[in-house]
């Protein structure tokens, strides 16, 4: 069975498509996570493949289905946080030998195929449909919702896993060389780190609206606090440290105006969800969380980096697509779990949504009000990537758990959890899911 990437027809990229045809007919039921680790220790049992298997088995068990009921799988084959297996480094033969291998020796180590998973999970005897989604869980969730809705499979595992190898982030490869190729040089000769583009947008935002970096402080502290109540997350598991305003405001700059804590920490981890039809979900172990809509942003900036105008226009468009297909308005949202890894994305996303009535330029003032899980306006109850490390999936796990009433210490209490939205990553280029405790 050859697996390919999901066709563009699976994504809801345009405005004016109306209510999603499968609104309320697809549900997430099971959630499964691996542990987290800062970097791989090169043991078989902590490889990205091993942790993927663990997350998938946990999702199956959580949903209370038997593995032979699963008939579909959607995974992200890319697993890198930015780290690639060095060309001059010998392959880890003991790890390769610990699994049933495909033709690619780095399968299960620095990438992941459906073929590898099925060879190493013999209990999945009934997979009839498999498909890849690029890069992010947010994308894979859009695909999974459409796969179940379209009837291509009825009980579907969705998976995203991340590997992070030894060595400093992004310091190897062409960045260490004295000369680089002409095509990449046009973008990369000036040495801008990953957060630079977002920092630029934030700088323009501050100039336009009269805001400053310190105004991000309540968001950062709220995100870490919520993250420390996420037992599946990196900071909760390894470094349970609260952040103070001084920690944030005095942290070293990476690309000013983005500092260390505006960046998410790259980690190893895997997560899986079990999606099924609303009908089948009724008989499963956990409360179903219904998908009201999914939406895609496929905008491309004109220049090297998106302008604030481009960012705001696209976030507003994304907000309209999200609401249109779900048949809801901003007033229906109990909470939002939009992307935050870089922190300075978050205000664009929630302003585009008009969350709690805010418009462009309002989010940093909104952050100065009660944005906690106990208040009426919870912001990023998951804590996001900032609260739990770079996975780009905490916001989805949290949304499902909030609506199932099993978010534990993070359970929002100032408002009933009825409808939530999660997704990202980029304002230009992201995927979003609207979740609901009820199908209608």
């Amino acid at each position: 069975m050859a697996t390919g990437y999901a066709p563009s027809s699976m994504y809801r990229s345009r405005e004016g498509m109306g209510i999603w045809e499968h609104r309320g007919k697809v549900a997430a039921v099971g959630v499964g996570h691996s542990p987290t680790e800062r970097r791989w220790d090169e043991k078989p049992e902590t490889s990205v493949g091993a942790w993927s298997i663990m997350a998938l088995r946990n999702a199956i068990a959580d949903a209370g289905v038997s593995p032979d009921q699963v008939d579909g799988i959607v995974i992200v084959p890319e697993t890198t946080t930015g780290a690639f297996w060095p060309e001059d480094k010998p392959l880890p033969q003991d790890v390769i030998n610990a699994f049933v291998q495909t033709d690619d020796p780095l399968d299960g180590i620095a990438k992941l195929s459906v073929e590898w998973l099925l060879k190493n999970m013999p209990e999945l005897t009934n997979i009839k449909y498999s498909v890849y989604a690029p890069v992010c869980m947010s994308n894979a969730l859009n695909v999974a919702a459409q796969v179940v809705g379209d009837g291509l499979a009825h009980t579907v595992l969705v998976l995203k896993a991340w590997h992070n190898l030894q060595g400093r982030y992004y310091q190897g490869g062409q960045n260490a060389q004295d000369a680089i190729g002409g095509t990449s040089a046009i973008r990369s000769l000036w040495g801008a780190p990953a957060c630079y583009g977002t920092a630029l947008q934030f700088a323009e935002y501050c100039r336009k609206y009269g805001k400053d970096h310190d105004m991000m402080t309540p968001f950062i502290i709220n995100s870490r606090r919520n993250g420390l109540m996420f037992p599946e997350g990196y900071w909760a598991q390894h470094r349970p440290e609260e952040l103070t305003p001084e920690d944030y405001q005095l942290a070293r700059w990476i690309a000013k105006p983005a500092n260390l804590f505006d960046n998410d920490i790259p980690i190893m981890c895997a997560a899986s969800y079990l999606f099924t039809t609303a009908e089948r979900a009724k008989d499963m172990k956990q409360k179903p969380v219904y998908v009201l809509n999914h939406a895609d942003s496929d905008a491309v900036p004109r220049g090297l980096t998106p302008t604030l105008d481009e960012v705001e226009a696209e976030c507003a468009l994304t907000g309209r697509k999200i609401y249109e297909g779900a048949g809801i308005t901003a007033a229906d949202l109990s909470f939002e779990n939009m992307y935050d890894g870089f922190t300075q994305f978050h205000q664009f996303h929630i302003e585009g949504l008009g969350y709690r009535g805010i418009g462009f330029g309002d989010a940093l003032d909104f952050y100065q009000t009660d944005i906690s899980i106990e208040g009426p306006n919870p912001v990023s109850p998951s804590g996001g990537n900032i609260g739990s490390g770079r996975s780009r999936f905490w916001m989805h796990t949290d949304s499902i758990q909030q609506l199932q009433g099993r978010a534990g210490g993070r359970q929002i209490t100032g408002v009933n959890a009825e409808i939530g939205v999660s997704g990202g990553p980029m304002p230009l280029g992201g995927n979003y899911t609207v979740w609901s405790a009820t199908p209608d």
Partner: protein
Amino acid sequence: MKQGVIPDDFTAPFWSAANESKLVIQNCSKCDRLQHPPAQDCGQCKSGDDLGWKEMSGTGRIYNYGVVHDCPIRLLQDDQPFNVAVIMLDDDPGIQMYSHLPGTAVDDVPVGAPVELVFEESANGQKIPEWKVVN
């Protein structure tokens, strides 16, 4: 010091023009539309048939900037912290180029100010388009 550049077939016209102290930007003559970074196809008509290179006037404005304190590129790390500005070309403000703004103090960048094209030698002698604030 910027990394050297090894021109590839695709970007060779850009880099050889730079070595002659000229800035050329990819242009679709059918759409009369510039694009940068260059691509195999025009972003508007999606065809590569009418793509060529057009010389720019060499003036622009500072649209935005950040200050890089933690750069992933080894050869630039001795220069930290440094400005990385985004220049919008007067020929078409939709066209952006990065600049270290030689001669401008770190984090003292006049956003909106006019700039003019200069060229800087990189580690292997390839000339790189750069931008200086016009006084």
